[in-house]
């Protein structure tokens, strides 16, 4: 079964992936700010118990584990692939995870909320991501009694998530807008519509390789489909602006950009050691060139998969061991050489 980031999807020149997260809590346990260690353990066990019925009803395999049993590399790699949040990976208390084999669905246990159901799909497809998460929510509700109030909706630990508990987001690639220093303006603009733009790993993180996250801010007062529809409209506006800016850049600067794209390919293809920041910058330029049709390859491939693969955690996870930074830079270069297809003219 192909993972979401290995598939070839529409609109991925700008929208890399669409993600939906539902925050849920059980009535029977205190929320994360008040939960005791032994209650946390019991919570993790209780929620993990639903993985069998998920496998059965969803017709694909779901794995369940305690985060504490994972190695540090596993944890970092999972954060890099957006399977778990940094908070879940670092938490001292017992935390758990249920993950589908294609990595589309992940359920975090004892994060800021007791249960966080997350669905990621490639490209621009918020509706599908929501449908996936919604189905999982229904199946989970058969076993777990989620706290719900007729007025306030789903009750969450933080009031900013209450109501639908829905955070929808798109991961977008904005090289043209960010090189034109237009991101700040964009943030201010979309803010008027209750939408935020943040770095790649969410709150308080910086952007890597011109990748940003666009998500809804409000979770109460609007239905799930209204929230999705609103966000979708904003993302399409951003996509339109990015594409327009790309066209403009190309119209004034084709030769320079083309040269930059081929240079990036050259370094990526032949370097013997490369840091993750350098790799991200070069891959970002390569993706830009590929999306604009400036450079063609002998086979289709997903640049974003490589962008995730070169991250320190994912790289060591592929290697199956912890290695020092020099070895890591060498293995990263080797990994890219192997994954990168040949160019055709």
């Amino acid at each position, binding site marked *: 079964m192909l993972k979401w980031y290995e598939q070839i999807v529409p609109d991925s020149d700008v929208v890399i992936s669409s993600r939906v997260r539902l925050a849920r809590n059980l009535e029977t346990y205190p929320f994360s700010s008040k939960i005791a260690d032994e209650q946390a353990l019991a919570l993790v066990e209780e929620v993990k118990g639903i993985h069998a019925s998920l496998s059965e009803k969803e017709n694909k395999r779901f794995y369940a584990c305690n985060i504490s049993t994972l190695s540090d590399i596993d944890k970092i790699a999972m954060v890099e692939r957006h399977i778990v949040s940094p908070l879940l990976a670092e938490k001292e208390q017992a935390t758990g995870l249920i993950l589908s084999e294609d990595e589309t669905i992940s359920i975090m246990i004892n994060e800021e909320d007791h249960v966080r159901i997350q669905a990621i799909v490639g490209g621009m497809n918020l509706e599908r991501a929501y449908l996936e998460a919604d189905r999982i929510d229904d199946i989970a509700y058969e076993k777990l009694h989620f706290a719900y109030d007729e007025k306030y909706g789903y009750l969450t630990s933080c009031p900013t998530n209450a109501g639908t508990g829905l955070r929808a987001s798109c991961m977008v690639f904005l090289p043209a807008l960010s090189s034109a220093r237009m991101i700040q303006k964009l943030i201010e603009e979309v803010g008027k519509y209750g939408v935020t733009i943040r770095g790649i790993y969410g709150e308080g993180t910086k952007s890597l390789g011109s990748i940003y996250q666009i998500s809804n801010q409000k979770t*109460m*007062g609007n*239905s799930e489909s209204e929230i999705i529809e609103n966000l979708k409209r904003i993302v399409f506006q951003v996509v339109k602006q990015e594409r327009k800016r790309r066209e403009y850049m190309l119209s004034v600067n084709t030769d320079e950009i083309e040269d930059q794209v081929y240079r990036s390919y050259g370094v990526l293809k032949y370097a013997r050691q490369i840091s993750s920041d350098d790799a991200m910058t070069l891959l970002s330029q390569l993706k830009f060139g590929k999306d604009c049709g400036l450079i063609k390859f002998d086979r289709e491939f997903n640049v974003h998969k490589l962008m995730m693969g070169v991250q320190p955690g994912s790289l060591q996870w592929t290697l199956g061991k912890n290695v020092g930074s020099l070895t890591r830079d060498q293995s990263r270069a080797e990994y890219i050489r192997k994954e990168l297809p040949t160019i055709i003219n």
Partner: protein
Amino acid sequence: MLCDRCQKRDAKILYTEIINGVKKEQHLCEECATDYTSFQMEKPLMNSDLTLGDLLSTLLETYTGAGQKKAGTDTPALTCENCGMTYDEFIGKGRFGCARCYQSFHNQLSKTFKGIQGSDIHTGKRPKGLTATAQPGQVKRDISEIEMLSIRLQEAIEKEEFEEAARLRDLIKQMRKEEELNNA
């Protein structure tokens, strides 16, 4: 030749615009040209005499206005019996202690939710197969006519029905004025 817009950089682009048969030519620099064209792209979202910010601020006024109705501002040591979280602690941490906190702090929450969420009423999904626990009619409790109109205003903005939105905005303004007069 200098750019017609900024008068600073060299004009490199001749930008021709035909609106309603009126032709307008401008010599622009690269920066202004992209600025100008992206500016044009956003234009259709706005109605000429009505900006979105205007509508949203009307919304916000309604919510905070509703909060000012002295819904018990003094709350001496309000505590959730279930988990022991006090109201002050909740405000300080910004986190609830348990599901019951929502009931315990009920009187204060409408204001909080309207402030941060723009609404204090969930209108989305209900858990499948949940039987109503509240008394009938409780779902839509505490909605004044103004709040109802605000919800419709919000919907109108989202659907980009700006004429309807403007009508609702004026209606809300008028109703609030009347309310103030009645209270005075």
